[in-house]
């Protein structure tokens, strides 16, 4: 059995990826809470984690559950308001999103998760499917649809902008 690393090494190695994933799935506002709850839960369970486990996939699985909890809690707290865009300043006059984070936040939940876990955390679709449910092919389709939607709603790089004008 490989010797288990001090938990500090887990935070140092995976902290940034998990934060990117949390931001992608939840948006910036709730990402810090999700990150904190994820690593606290991971610390609690860490001594029992098998020495050969895929630590990043394990962390993403925990983060996925925490994100669901946070979203549910937010929905319970929410007070209905007349239609109001979440972040009006981040949209341009033509309705396209000014930044990629906003575009990502506009994706359906499953697409967002598939994009985050596959492209940001680098998990194979098989592992993504194990976290979000469904088959590996379905996870692949969700990620592909997500990327296609992102390309539609996000105008892209500054170079592309200049050419369009």
């Amino acid at each position: 059995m490989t010797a288990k690393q001090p938990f500090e090494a887990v935070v140092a190695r995976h902290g940034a990826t998990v934060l990117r994933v949390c931001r992608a799935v939840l948006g910036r506002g709730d990402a810090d809470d999700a990150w904190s709850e994820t690593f606290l839960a991971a610390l609690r369970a860490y001594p029992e984690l098998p020495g050969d486990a895929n630590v990043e996939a394990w962390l993403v699985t925990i983060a996925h559950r925490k994100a669901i909890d946070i979203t549910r809690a937010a929905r319970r707290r929410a007070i209905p308001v007349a239609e109001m865009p979440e972040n009006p300043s981040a949209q341009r006059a033509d309705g396209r999103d000014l930044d990629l984070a906003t575009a990502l936040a506009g994706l359906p939940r499953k697409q967002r998760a598939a994009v985050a876990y596959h492209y940001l955390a680098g998990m194979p679709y098989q592992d993504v499917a194990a976290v979000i449910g469904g088959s590996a092919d379905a996870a692949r389709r969700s990620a592909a649809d997500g990327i296609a939607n992102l390309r539609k709603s996000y105008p892209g790089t500054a170079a592309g902008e200049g050419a369009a004008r």
Partner: protein
Amino acid sequence: MTASDESAVQDLLTALPAVTEADLSALHDRLAVSAAAEGMLDVAYRTLDTPLGTLLLAATEQGLVRVAYATEDHDKVLTTIAKRISPRILHAPRRLDLAASEIDEYFAGQRRSFDLPLDLSLSTGFRRAVLSHLPDIGYGHTATYAAVAAAAGSPRAVRAVGTACATNPLPVVVPCHRVIRADGSFGGYLGGPAAKRALLELEAA
């Protein structure tokens, strides 16, 4: 999806706001505080710059459990702690505040004994018995390996005293540097002979 498509997506995603060191460091600190509050921070550690190089200080909830010289390889020391005590280890300086300030004072010549809760769980059996007698050797004094063996109740276990000193998990604080050979030569030291000499000279000043 082809590999080049994958890399085009990666390029697209670089437009997401970057995760900064400051973001992560704030989250790390918050984690250390909540872990300690929930009783899950089994081992907290920090480093401390001293005239003998950077020391690693680690503490359990019971007390200071490990002081390590840089020559011992701090990463290796932490991995051993993970195996022998618990892998729930975080860089969390707060628990080491008192230890760090007492060690600072010691190196500044302003402190002659340590008043800290200690956790000797990295040392067992006779070695632990030896370590518990070392603070009896006062600041600025020395004792021979044989004298320490006698004090620990096993006058013939001179070699074992040498091993206990060489594996002292709390050098500086538990003063194994005050144990020398019968002929007056320093004998070995886990921090190296120069470190032992420096500590004895500091205490003789």
